């Protein structure tokens, strides 16, 4: 009886597993395979010869790729830091009881729920150099000093970072909030009785107990920030002068605009390896007690 049950359970897993295998696992394997070959869309007469590590060697020497890697790291570090900081602040706030708390929670969810493409167009509109509201807020009616934020390398990267912080801080807030809500109220009561100040209560109760949730938010956000694409695609197309040409955008351009499938695959494998290392760290740190808490 039990054996028959098990067979049924495995059968139920087959359709989902096949789909994941076919559309995720196999493509990743094929990307790795392609990255060792020269393959150019539109030039099928070249066949696709095996070129060993040539693509990777080229990638290491490619100044655009190195720059792209650097700005992706800057983007990930700065945006993740502020997302966690803002997320923590918002979570601490929403964790309090006050009238209109549900409404505020819904407000915070809005940036998360809307398409990234809409958020990108929104920031592009607000940062417009001729009649953008941000220029008006900074410079008033003196249109001659208006700044074309998205056309200057430094401000363009900054704009994309701000757009990302706006869009995803709420996600960090939700994860951290979930961590906050499992802290028993009695702990705070007891600390109050013992005369602990606000800061002390945060430092010795809240902080150690939400560290796991912070870690989860940190890793989710880092992994997600490494594959940023929609924001720079819409806001700057990677410009000006490659200032916002993040890795996934560069890989996309190589593969689908220029047709260098093999070289683009090498870029995508590099992104994959970075994310894989981060994911393994995540699973190592958190995955172990996956079921224990829920049972």
């Amino acid at each position, binding site marked *: 009886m039990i054996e028959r049950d098990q067979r049924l359970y495995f059968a139920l897993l087959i359709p989902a597993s096949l789909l994941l295998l076919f559309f995720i696992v196999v493509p990743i394997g094929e990307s790795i395979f392609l990255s060792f070959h020269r393959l150019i869309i539109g030039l099928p007469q070249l066949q696709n010869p095996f070129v060993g590590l040539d693509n990777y060697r080229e990638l290491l020497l490619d100044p655009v790729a190195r720059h792209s890697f650097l700005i992706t790291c800057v983007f990930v570090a700065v945006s993740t830091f502020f997302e966690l900081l803002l997320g923590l602040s918002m979570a601490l706030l929403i964790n309090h009881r006050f009238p209109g708390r549900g409404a505020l929670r*819904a407000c915070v969810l809005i940036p998360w729920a809307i*398409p*990234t493409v809409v958020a990108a167009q929104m920031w592009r*509109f607000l940062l417009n150099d001729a*009649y953008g509201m941000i220029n008006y807020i900074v410079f008033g009616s003196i249109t001659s000093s208006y700044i074309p934020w998205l056309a200057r390398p430094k401000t363009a990267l900054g704009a994309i970072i701000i757009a990302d912080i706006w869009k995803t801080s709420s996600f960090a807030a939700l994860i951290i909030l979930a961590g906050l809500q499992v802290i028993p109220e009695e702990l705070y009561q007891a600390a109050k009785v013992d005369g602990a100040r606000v800061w002390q209560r945060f430092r010795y109760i809240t902080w150690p107990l939400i560290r796991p949730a912070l870690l989860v938010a940190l890793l989710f956000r880092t992994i997600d920030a490494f594959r940023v694409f929609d924001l720079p695609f819409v806001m700057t197309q990677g410009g000006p002068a490659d200032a916002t040409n993040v890795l996934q955008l560069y890989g996309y351009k190589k593969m*689908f605009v220029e047709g260098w499938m093999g070289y683009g695959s090498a870029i995508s494998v590099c992104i994959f390896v970075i994310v*894989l290392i981060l994911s393994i760290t995540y*699973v190592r740190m958190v995955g172990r007690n996956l079921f224990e808490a*829920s049972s």
Partner: protein
Amino acid sequence: MRSESLKKATIFCGVILTAIFSLGPFLLFVSSAFKTQGQLTAIPPQWLPAFSLEFFASAFKRYRIIGYLLNSTIVAGSTTLITMFLGTLAGYALARLPRQLAQSILIGILACSMFPQISIAGPIWRFLRLVGWLNTYQGLILPYVALTLPLSVWILTIFFQDIPRELESAALVDGCTRFGILGRIILPISLPGVFTAAILSFIYAWNEFFLALLIMTDPSMQTMPVGIALFQGEHTIPWGEIAAASFITTAPLVFMVLLFQGRIISGLSAGAVKG
């Protein structure tokens, strides 16, 4: 007493700041959809729109956004239905298999959602071109199902685990079939979980841009995000129409957030809390 009112003031300021941060930019943008052309480019900006519908009319007439809307609805709707069907089967199985084994499988499934889309995009594109599925609904829906399955299976497994097995054995004794149990007992009880997973899958498929951009190159097949990203005017950027299209795209999402915020939050934080 003084510290109590200080605390209240701090919370009040925090609430105002958070609300402005989250909603301010968005309201400034979508309210532009209701402005007139003259209002849109005015300096100083006209904060209150004239509630004109000219940009909506133009978005529908000149930019044919009804087609994008239809494509998005078909793709996101089908993705959600298929994901729920496959996810329910898999989630039920995982909830009933031995813990250790189920946990390993679940981690494998979750790992699939961690990978950057670009590392699967090339091969998926090549495969779809090979079978002639570029610019077809199934060509986009199938990858979307694969991408939304992991989180859905996760949420559903957690819900199914909470249903006591005794309920099932009782039904078995009463002569119910295995699928009868899934349909008549498990599903009705775990409807909130199914609903949570469905909302998150729908939002993902409705908002996804990268794969839609690659797979749908024919404008008549493109979804809303692709349409909004590639909006082109003849000479200038048609901001009014873009804002109108954005308003239409986000309206159902805002509606979902207002109605189901509790479910969305519990679904998203399922991983964090259980971990």
